[in-house]
């Protein structure tokens, strides 16, 4: 079992470290995105003291305009979705399913119903902001293949977690044990402490993470129940779109939808967010009204589901209602929704996000300390697990450790530096920022491979420290905005990003210093003694 934990853990440690660090940063993807769009942030600040816009009173009119637009431009679409009063900004939007698949969307002028063209202002930088960390975290910016790689890695993580708990015989005795400055002992203590003390979080985050794509990873029951052809589509529609009526074929005009919106608001006690019209202009027409979750809703409930009320337009009767937080299909559906929101910390407000941030950092540290511990142990006493290739494999693992831990962190802060350094007007600017992230990471890998292990750590941690600590300076030089000004005008998102960066920088500097002070012990090589494969396998099978 220790063998299982060691080898499962090691091979995924580098990728999983990246998934965890980016996931932890993704908790604050909006503040990071805010910092990364300084022009937008300053504009927001300039309007911060404007009086709030008056409450919208012409919703009925907006609905009518949007319906006219859809009638003219997309009459054949079998689902029309209207957001009569967007947040923020009180805009009017329309969405529909395109025949080629995927959503189409248009923003409309609330007074005339004419489509609004969004022209990116020349001075606003194009960026995906903090969403880069989200996208990398769940799909490595690699689409379906990325989702599968992350899924497999997470599955192995679950095995590593369970085998780790089984292996840790003294889990209660050693619960709070951390003995610093004792070399290998300290690394093991640290690994155990960050893992055990946040164990509920680690299990939860891994399981809820893999559950997102559960029907992709385990398609067998979907296929068995819904068939091979379009089985997945049928399943999703069955689960999500409970009670969608089939077209009848006889035409029917779309009535005024405002009374239905008012009825829905009475029933679900939420302001209407979205109006979804199924089978428009057909006698089977159904309209579903969805509500907005207010902040008080997110503080009370884990499920992100909003209220919903559906009406058959031929008869006017209410055919379905869902109170906020509940699920349409039943307890399994509710579990799935709760799992998603548990993973994304979409509830409870800022304090919960900070708790996730610290637990996420603990999980990241769990992987980092594990990978480092593997080599610290073997530099004390080589294990010969790979026969004659052992030393080369150890060297490779050391390189990967430096690149995956320090190097990835450099790439993350480097992404923010790229945001300030890449010229504003260039084509595909957002793509260049992401390329800078990957390019920097690759550079760190190369550096880690050509430098001796200790120097690799010191140099990359030092670089990390410099980039992190100087981030606020970079901001001053590139935008003229500074930390004090941010705090004074109450922009705690930007200030938070910069302050956290400085703290991480100081930690990195401390780390570089500690590595610098590290005393090298003479190495005992068992590798030459253990040339025969079965013997080395036996060693590894007995213990890690």
């Amino acid at each position, binding site marked *: 079992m220790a063998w299982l934990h060691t080898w499962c853990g090691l091979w995924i440690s580098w990728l999983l470290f990246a998934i965890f660090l980016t996931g932890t940063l993704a908790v604050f993807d909006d503040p990071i995105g805010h910092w990364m769009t300084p022009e937008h942030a300053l504009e927001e600040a300039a309007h911060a003291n404007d009086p709030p816009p008056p409450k919208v009173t012409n919703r009925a009119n907006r609905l009518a305009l949007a319906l006219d637009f859809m009638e003219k431009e997309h009459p054949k679409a079998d689902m029309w979705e209207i957001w009569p009063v967007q947040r923020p900004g009180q805009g009017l939007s329309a969405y529909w399913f395109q025949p080629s698949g995927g959503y189409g969307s248009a923003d409309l002028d609330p007074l005339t119903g004419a489509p609004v063209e969004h022209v990116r202002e020349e001075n606003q930088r194009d960026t995906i902001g903090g969403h880069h960390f989200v996208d990398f975290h769940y799909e490595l910016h690699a689409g379906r293949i990325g989702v599968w790689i992350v899924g497999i890695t997470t599955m192995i993580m679950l095995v590593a977690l369970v085998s780790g708990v089984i292996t840790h015989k003294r889990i209660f005795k050693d*619960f*709070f044990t*951390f003995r610093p400055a004792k070399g290998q002992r300290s690394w093991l203590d640290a690994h155990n402490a960050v893992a055990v003390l946040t164990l509920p979080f680690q299990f939860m985050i891994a399981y809820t993470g893999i559950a997102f794509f559960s029907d992709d990873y385990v398609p067998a029951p979907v296929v068995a129940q819904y068939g091979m052809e379009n089985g997945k589509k049928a399943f999703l529609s069955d689960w999500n779109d409970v009670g969608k009526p089939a077209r009848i074929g006889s035409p029917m005009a779309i009535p005024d939808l405002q009374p239905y919106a008012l009825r829905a608001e009475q029933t679900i006690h939420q302001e209407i967010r979205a109006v979804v019209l199924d089978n428009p202009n057909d006698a089977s027409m159904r309209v579903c009204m969805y509500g907005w979750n207010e902040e008080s809703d997110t*503080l*009370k409930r884990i499920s992100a589901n909003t209220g919903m009320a559906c009406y058959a337009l031929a008869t006017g009767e209410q055919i379905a209602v869902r109170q906020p937080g509940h699920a349409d299909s039943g307890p399994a559906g509710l579990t799935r929704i709760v799992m998603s929101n548990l993973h994304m910390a979409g509830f409870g407000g800022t304090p*919960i996000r900070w*708790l996730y941030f610290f*637990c996420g950092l603990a999980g990241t540290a769990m992987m980092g300390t594990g990978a480092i511990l593997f080599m610290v142990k073997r530099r004390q006493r080589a294990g010969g697990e790979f026969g004659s290739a052992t030393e080369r494999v150890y060297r490779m693992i050391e390189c990967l450790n430096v690149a995956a831990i320090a190097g990835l962190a450099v790439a993350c802060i480097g992404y923010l530096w790229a945001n300030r350094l890449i010229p504003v007007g260039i084509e595909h600017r957002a793509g260049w920022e992401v390329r800078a992230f990957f390019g920097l990471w690759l550079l760190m890998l190369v550096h880690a491979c050509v430098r001796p292990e200790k120097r690799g750590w010191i140099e990359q941690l030092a670089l990390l420290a410099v980039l992190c600590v100087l981030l606020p300076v970079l901001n001053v030089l590139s935008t003229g905005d500074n930390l004090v000004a941010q705090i004074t005008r109450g922009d705690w998102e930007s200030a938070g990003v910069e302050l956290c960066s400085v703290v991480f920088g100081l930690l990195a500097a401390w780390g570089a210093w500690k590595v610098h002070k590290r005393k090298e012990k003479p190495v005992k090589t068992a590798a030459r003694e253990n040339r025969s494969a079965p013997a080395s396998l036996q060693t590894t099978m007995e213990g890690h």
Partner: protein
Amino acid sequence: MNVILCALGLSYAGMASLSLAMDRHHGQVWGRDAAVNVRRALQLIGAVLLALAIWPCVAGWSATVGFVAWVGFISAGALLVALLLPYAPKLLLRSSLLAAVAALAGLVTFLQ
């Protein structure tokens, strides 16, 4: 804010108490093993403080969200204790006593 301080204070103090019930950590503060009745007392106090931490969480959020928050707070409290024990055990003792008193007093605000 009250909620966070109370929950964190109780979690931290509770975990500290549980840790000091263990011989190894008792020794870090007092230089000797814990006597049996002292150990029982510290375990009980720790468990009670941790359990009490659910109160501000549920009051500040809701039953479900509060439970999740509570798990987060006790994890955070445990991490703090594990970090302080090797470096500053006396500080741990004093600060956890302070935290317990302050947090228990703060619980009064949730009485209405």
